[in-house]
């Protein structure tokens, strides 16, 4: 049963809490991000890029890395300004930070890896719409100190990156060995479903 305790809907908070007594312990954050509360397999967020870009390990890796970079910067900055967040400007500031980060990631990718940038195309700008980034900003970074927020970003981002590469590997391997449907969208759904089944079995 997926862990739905950490909801991703925005809370109607009137302010932020920065009590360090509530900050989760480092190891807990890692386990949460990588497994217990994995963005792709448990929270089921970021499914659009997950399914669309995972047709090869290379594409999956680069997009996962871009998402991780965005998460890091976003969590860091949100955590930095968490005392200045208010109910009225909170979401606006998240979107401002995330959109700026993604724009910079897009420009840098275009300069450093033009071929990959052309392949990934619109999926880099689409990182802005990935719910898990705003989710972590709201749920974690806005209430926890920088060090914990950075760990959370790393854990969530790595959890997503590993999942992306795993699906990419499955699809690319199956596709190269004759199972053509693996490279098409349905293949992505099947691969994710198999991974979800496996994870739930392991969790038992």
């Amino acid at each position, binding site marked *: 049963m997926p862990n739905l305790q950490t909801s991703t809907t925005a809370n109607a908070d009137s302010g932020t809490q920065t009590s360090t007594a509530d900050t989760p312990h480092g190891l807990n954050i890692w386990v949460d991000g990588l497994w217990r509360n994995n963005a792709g397999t448990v929270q089921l967020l970021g499914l659009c890029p997950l399914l669309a870009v995972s047709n090869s390990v290379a594409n999956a890796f680069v997009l996962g890395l871009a998402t991780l970079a965005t998460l890091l910067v976003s969590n860091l900055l949100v955590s930095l300004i968490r005392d*200045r967040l208010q109910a*009225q400007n909170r979401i606006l*500031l998240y979107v401002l930070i995330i959109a700026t980060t993604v724009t*910079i990631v897009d420009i840098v990718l*275009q*300069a450093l890896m033009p071929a990959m940038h052309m392949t990934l195309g619109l999926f880099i700008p689409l990182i802005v719409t990935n719910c898990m980034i705003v989710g972590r900003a709201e749920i974690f970074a806005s209430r926890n100190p920088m060090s914990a927020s950075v760990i959370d970003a790393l854990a969530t981002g790595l959890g997503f990156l590993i999942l992306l590469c795993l699906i990419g590997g499955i699809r690319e391997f199956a596709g190269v060995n004759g199972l053509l449907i693996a490279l098409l969208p349905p293949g992505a759904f099947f691969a994710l479903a198999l991974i979800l089944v496996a994870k739930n079995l392991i969790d038992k």
Partner: protein
Amino acid sequence: MTSQPTSPVPTVALLGTICTILVATVWVLAQPAIQRAQAQHLEQQLTEVMAGIRFDNNISRDSIRIDSIHGPITVYRARQNGDPVATIYEATTMRGYSGAIRLLVGIDRDHEITGVRILSHRETPGLGDSIEISKSDWITGFNSLSLDKLTSENWQVKKDGGQFDQFTGATITPRAMVNVVHDILKRHRSAGDVVFQ
């Protein structure tokens, strides 16, 4: 009664300014590398469009600008021993699904298309992006066509009564492509030998 909060405006304004400066700075710094990559991409597409034609000049440096209904366009000339062998039009159409589609159209001395290639676009991944040669060979359907080989009525997508396939779920993109290629062919005919000056 809630305590009067401070205005959210200063924080948003400050952050907005910082973000704008950051993006602008990164953009300016990245321009040299991006221009180089785009020049390289142009060279590569020019070569692909000229597949099958012998030429010995540096095409990307041999160009002029002419007017067209799509605005000013760049015309590259391919020559062999100084004689013109082909022209390549770099055109832009705004009638795609999303933003501008930039493309190259190569035309030989018989006014037949040598090849069409996409330079850049923002069409929908999985739908409109089948105009890219890496996604499908639809764009090779233009090869060796001309205004003589195909009547005006046939220079349309099948949905509009012509002979070009549209993509399932994406008609606007191929329609824009067929229209701009047709326009280029007509522009080439009206340009005559001006393009080789």
